[in-house]
């Protein structure tokens, strides 16, 4: 009689011990201490600040932390994630609402570990899983730059996370999976410029944050490095052998694209990439050239393909035996009446003409999102910036017309197999 009861007791104690042990381990994983606030902002010499400005530009800080150009680095931009909406925060040296009380140690810990000065875990919308590989010199310079910006009063906007992601300590488990703190290593077989570009692309400009697909947990899918991801519901093209570009990128085109957003006869930057090129235009030209050298070496792995881009000209009418003849005829008519006026007008590049559509990379993407954004919203240079414009057709084309146009362009412009679920993607893109 006695033995089973004792056994039950033992089991209970073991269970309790296991729960306590698990809680301790979770505590160790999730808890980070607060670091002492600094009471005064140190002074920095100008060369450090200038170098830091270049790091901030290449690190794309402003693309999230400066949604309002009149208030640099004051934050407040909503960033949609599958786990809720995160708002970028104030990284000006304001003591109350910014990072004025953050010592260099606290700043370094945030950059490398994703931990705020007070010990709370930052969401990985902040790409510390890339910044972790920045050199300490770059972090020091960035700190000098940010700490010498005008302090602005801008309290953090509350995030709107879906349950249970509002619990910040859970980010610790994300960090176990995705925060790789191995330092960046140069490849001795490559040139110094290539290595500079590789370092900037990975540790600073965090290209892979958009151009690598993400797992269900929102981490980088490292087996598919640079295989193409997404940004603000645009397809971010693969930057490796899977590059959708129908014509091989030349290095000169890439350098021009990254600095100006415009690669003559090849591509223009649109969507979230506009912010990127706007910032790169302010970075050191040799750094942007290094980025172009590295990116080109990745894109050069893509096989040269036989595509309609090699023979640009007006797109053809659908074949008489096309199984979707009615929709393709509609698409062709829309192309002829709306797109061709600029895209296939046969004018010289200087007179406002646009890329022949066979050469438009969005037609070759594995999904139609970027093309639909271009059709619906067009291309508009950021406020006050010069650049190519394209009017949007959202209010002009009905849903059925947009589907027909995209399907026609895919088939008769790019000669690629139809996108699955095009109807659904159009409807989703147009739901406010």
């Amino acid at each position: 009689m006695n033995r089973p009861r004792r056994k039950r007791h033992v089991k209970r104690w073991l269970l309790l011990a296991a729960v306590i042990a698990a809680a301790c381990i979770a505590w160790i994983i999730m808890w980070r201490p607060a670091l002492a606030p600094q009471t005064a902002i140190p002074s920095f010499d100008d060369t450090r600040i200038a170098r830091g400005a270049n790091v901030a530009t290449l690190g794309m800080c402003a693309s999230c932390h400066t949604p309002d150009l009149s208030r640099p680095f004051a934050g407040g931009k909503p960033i949609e994630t599958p786990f809720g909406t995160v708002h970028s925060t104030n990284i000006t040296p304001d003591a109350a609402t910014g990072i004025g009380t953050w010592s260099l140690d606290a700043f370094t810990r945030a950059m490398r570990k994703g931990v705020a000065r007070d010990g709370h875990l930052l969401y990985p919308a902040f790409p510390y899983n890339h910044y972790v590989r920045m050199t300490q010199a770059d972090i020091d310079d960035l700190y000098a730059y940010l700490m010498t910006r005008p302090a602005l009063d801008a309290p953090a906007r509350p995030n709107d996370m879906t349950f249970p992601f509002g619990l910040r300590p859970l980010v610790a488990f994300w960090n176990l999976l995705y925060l790789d703190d191995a330092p960046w290593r140069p490849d001795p077989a490559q040139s110094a410029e290539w290595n500079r570009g590789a370092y900037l692309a990975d540790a600073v400009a965090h290209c892979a944050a958009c151009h690598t697909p993400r797992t269900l947990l929102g981490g980088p899918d490292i087996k598919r490095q640079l295989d193409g991801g997404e940004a603000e519901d645009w397809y971010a093209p693969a930057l490796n052998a899977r590059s959708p570009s129908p014509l091989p990128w030349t290095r000169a085109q890439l350098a021009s694209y990254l600095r100006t957003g415009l690669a003559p006869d090849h591509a223009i930057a649109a969507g979230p990439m506009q912010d990127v090129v706007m910032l790169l235009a302010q970075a050191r030209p040799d750094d942007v050239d290094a980025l172009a050298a590295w990116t080109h070496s990745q894109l050069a792995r893509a096989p040269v393909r036989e595509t309609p881009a090699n023979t640009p000209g007006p797109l053809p009418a659908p074949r008489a035996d096309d199984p979707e003849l009615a929709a393709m005829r509609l698409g062709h008519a829309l192309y002829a009446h709306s797109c061709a006026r600029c895209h296939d007008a046969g004018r010289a590049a200087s007179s406002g003409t646009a890329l022949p559509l066979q050469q438009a990379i969005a037609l070759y993407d594995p999904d139609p999102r970027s093309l639909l954004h271009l059709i619906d919203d067009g291309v508009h240079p950021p406020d006050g910036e010069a650049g190519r414009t394209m009017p949007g057709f959202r209010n002009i084309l009905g849903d059925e017309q947009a589907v027909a146009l995209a399907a026609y362009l895919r088939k008769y412009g790019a000669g690629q197999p139809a996108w699955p679920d095009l109807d659904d993607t159009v409807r989703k893109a147009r739901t406010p």
Partner: protein
Amino acid sequence: MTAYRLQVNGKQHAVDTDPDTPLLYVLRNDLALNGAKFGCGLGQCGSCTVLLAGQPAMSCMVPVSVVGARPVRTVESLGDARQQHTIGVLQQAFIDEQAAQCGYCIAGMIMQATALLEREPQPSDARIRAHMAPNLCRCGTHMRILRAVRRAADRLAKDKR
């Protein structure tokens, strides 16, 4: 030439024209509705803005073939002082703020603003600015135009109360 039936400002019209004819040309040349103006013809200035199914659209970019059954509204639908002896709240606000200089962009501006106020009767100043951004005024009366839209929004809110 193809026959199209268009619903413009509440009236049905039959026109016979090429499918790629811009809606703007049909409005001006076939229907004698000269409010919408030809500015750039490239969808970059907004002087031809009309409402297509309630949404602002630059009519120089709209091939007549895509309109279908969607109703079209032009500035004439808001009120015409000569014919109906009344004008709309927005038109009055533009007069009160003296928002027109040469006036060429104004019909488009008013239709762009109409689209906003019909959906959002009480927009913030920032919202008005963002919404009106596609429409250009080369005389530079943008500040007066923004004030006129503000005035119309405030007037509509007051009338509602």
